[in-house]
């Protein structure tokens, strides 16, 4: 495994780094390995993690002093991760079996935070990450999931905290019958920059995946959604779909979407869609006639739009957690 400093800085021509280049999300200078504080994990035991040839994962591994292992067997677990100090990082390894639920709440007031998650799923796992970082925080998040035979991963993210977010989630459907459902809701406000990249690779036949990303962009925020669905040769009977939707709330907001497909097998279904639009004035008018102020009406529509990203998520506990947190977040914005 090569060390972080030996890995070439990726060019912006690569979609993953087009809108949030490595230079921008690195906490200092790209040729530096700064000293960072460790994350506080409310659950798990310490373990020795391994590095990666991918630059962001390698960097988090290099700077991180805390690696935690969490085994989930038919259980619901709340995991609080707290980032503190000027820079903070940590690694989390998850192994789940049976029917498990993991609710991760990432909070704190760091200048920069780096979180690397690796997971192996046997059975069914529904995992949600609620990004509750302070509004000035930068977050670099890298996930790598492997889903076993006839197993299912549901991963959900509510991204409303922090100022600059770069998230890179990769799911490997390794064996026949494995599936994953991905859902990400991002709320851009003020000048928040929220960049989500999701790669799902169908490495075996009869594997299914769905990915939905909804971004509501207000203020002068910038939302980026890039995705790559790959169906390898011979993975017949696979079904893959991804949908990216952007709701543009203000004239200065920007949204980019790159939903990519690479299909190397013929007996498959693969589709993607993307849409961008503003809130219809008729909808605002309708809600205002019911006694809501324009900002309340807009907030209600944003809530509905963002919650709709989780329409394929079956775990009610996860839905409830997201809805509660989203309501608090939107209420804080409306009422100051």
């Amino acid at each position, binding site marked *: 495994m090569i060390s972080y400093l030996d890995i070439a800085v990726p060019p912006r*021509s690569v*979609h993953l780094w087009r809108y949030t280049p490595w230079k921008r999300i690195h906490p200092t200078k790209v040729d530096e390995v700064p000293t960072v504080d460790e994350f506080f994990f409310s659950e798990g035991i310490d373990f020795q993690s391994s590095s990666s040839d991918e630059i962001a994962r390698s960097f988090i591994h290099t700077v991180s002093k805390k690696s935690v292992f969490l085994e989930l067997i038919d259980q619901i677990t709340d995991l609080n991760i707290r980032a503190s100090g000027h820079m903070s990082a940590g690694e989390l390894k998850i192994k789940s079996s049976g029917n498990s639920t993991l609710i991760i709440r990432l909070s704190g007031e760091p200048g920069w935070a780096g979180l690397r998650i690796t997971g192996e799923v046997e059975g069914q796992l529904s995992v949600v990450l609620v990004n509750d970082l302070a509004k000035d925080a930068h977050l670099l998040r890298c996930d790598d999931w492997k889903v076993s035979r006839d197993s299912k991963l549901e991963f959900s993210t509510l991204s409303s905290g922090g100022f600059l977010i770069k998230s890179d989630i990769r799911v490997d459907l390794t064996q026949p019958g494995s599936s994953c459902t991905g859902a990400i809701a991002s709320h851009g406000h003020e000048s928040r920059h929220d960049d989500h990249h999701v790669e799902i690779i169908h490495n075996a036949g009869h594997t299914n995946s769905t990915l939905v990303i909804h971004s509501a*962009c207000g203020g002068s925020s910038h939302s980026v959604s890039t995705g790559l669905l790959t169906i390898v*040769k*011979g993975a*017949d009977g696979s079904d893959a779909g991804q949908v990216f939707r*952007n709701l*543009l*709330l*203000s*004239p*200065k*907001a*920007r*949204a*980019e*979407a*790159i*939903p*990519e*497909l*690479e*299909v*190397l*097998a*013929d*007996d*498959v*279904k*693969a*589709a*993607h*869609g*993307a*849409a*961008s*639009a*503003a809130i219809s004035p008729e909808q605002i008018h309708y809600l205002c006639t019911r006694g809501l102020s324009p900002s309340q009406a807009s907030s209600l529509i944003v809530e509905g739009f963002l919650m709709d990203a989780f329409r394929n998520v079956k775990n009610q506990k996860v839905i409830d957690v997201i809805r509660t947190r989203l309501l608090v977040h939107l209420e804080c914005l409306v009422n100051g």
Partner: protein
Amino acid sequence: MAEENAQNAIVDYQFGFHDPETATIRFDSGLSEKVVRDISELKGEPEWMTEIRIKAFHRFEQMPMPKWGSDILEQIDFDSIIYFLRSSEKTEKNWDDVPKDIRNTFERLGIPEAEQKWLGGVTAQYESEAVYHSIREDLEAQGVIFLDMDSGLKQYPEIVKKYFCSVVPYSDNKFAALNTAVWSGGSFLYIPKGVHVEMPVQAYFRINAKNMGQFERTLIIADEGAKINYVEGCTAPTYSTDSLHSAVVELIALEGSTIRYSTIQNWSANVYNLVTKRGVAHANSTIEWVDGNIGSKLTMKYPAILLRGEGAHAEVISVAYAGKGQHQDTGAKVHHLAPNTTSNILSKSISKHGGRSSYRGLLQVTPKADQCRSKIVCDALILDPESRSDTYPTMEIGNSTADIEHEASVSKVSGDQLFYLMSRGHTETEAMGLIVNGFFEPFTRELPMEYAVELNRLLELEMEGSIG
């Protein structure tokens, strides 16, 4: 072995025949500043054009080969390519004056017959330069200028100077730089204010020699309220060595005008087709690219439209067929730069026998482009387990009033559809052919009838042996 493969390919590719080379001027293979200067001198060009060529050549040398798109790009050997070959001393206006061998070639391709029946004008380019050119007298009387690009530069240098490189600068990409350095031939078309050219005008490009590079340059200007339908076809013989086609097409649609540019690219499977096509649409004008890619070893072509004026409209309809050893990397780019602009992109592709088709697109909405709308649809069919289909769309939305939709799907021909047609008495091959023709129907219905019939026939030929 390579020769044998080439011979086999000739059997499959109906335009794979070639004539003996009868060049009056033939440059040695390889590219240098001297070659660029010699081309310019030979054509007796003004100094400003020579200077642009030289600048473009140096830019070409500096620019790296693109790292994206296709690994096949690395196989291009620029030193083995012939950059200029003149087959006829001048561009003839009378078909009978065209040298016999060349005339035979175009007659086999059906060009003179088509001209008589349904075309407003024709340019036939053989190797580096146009060998035949004509335009209907009534169009000429209305002020329509339709010339090969070399004659256009000689006769209308002010217009060419004003618009040349204005839409595709020579520094745009490596192959645009190469084209600007060594361009030869192509069409120059100017349609005066308010003139509607109802019959299509056509250019036909033919590469005949081995290792030939064809670098035509086309410039079409539709003045205010004008309307034109330009049709382009391309073929080449099948050789065991590769040829390069690297064209640049610039369209300027002034206020209220309409330009439709239709291409059926049917290069043989030894041609690299690396083309830059771009149009600027001013207020209330329309640019339509109707783009069919059937042949070539590698095509990288992304027709682009800059919607610069309020109310402008862009339409791109493209189909691609990727067979054995082919990579069709095609797509569309639309830039919404002004308010109330609209665009539609429809892309369809078929991959068969290990072929790879890719859609690569960009839709950009700038902050000033209020109330613009766009819809993109990409459909792909994969007909066997060896083939591949990719979709790489990019949407950059910088205006909150934009209404943008994109959808794409990849699938195989369903067993139910085949079964239904076979239960009506069709063989499996016929059923597959019908389904494929139906899949491409949104494209073929936009073509002039003769082209649509020809395209359907080409597809049927390509689809033979698809089953089993």
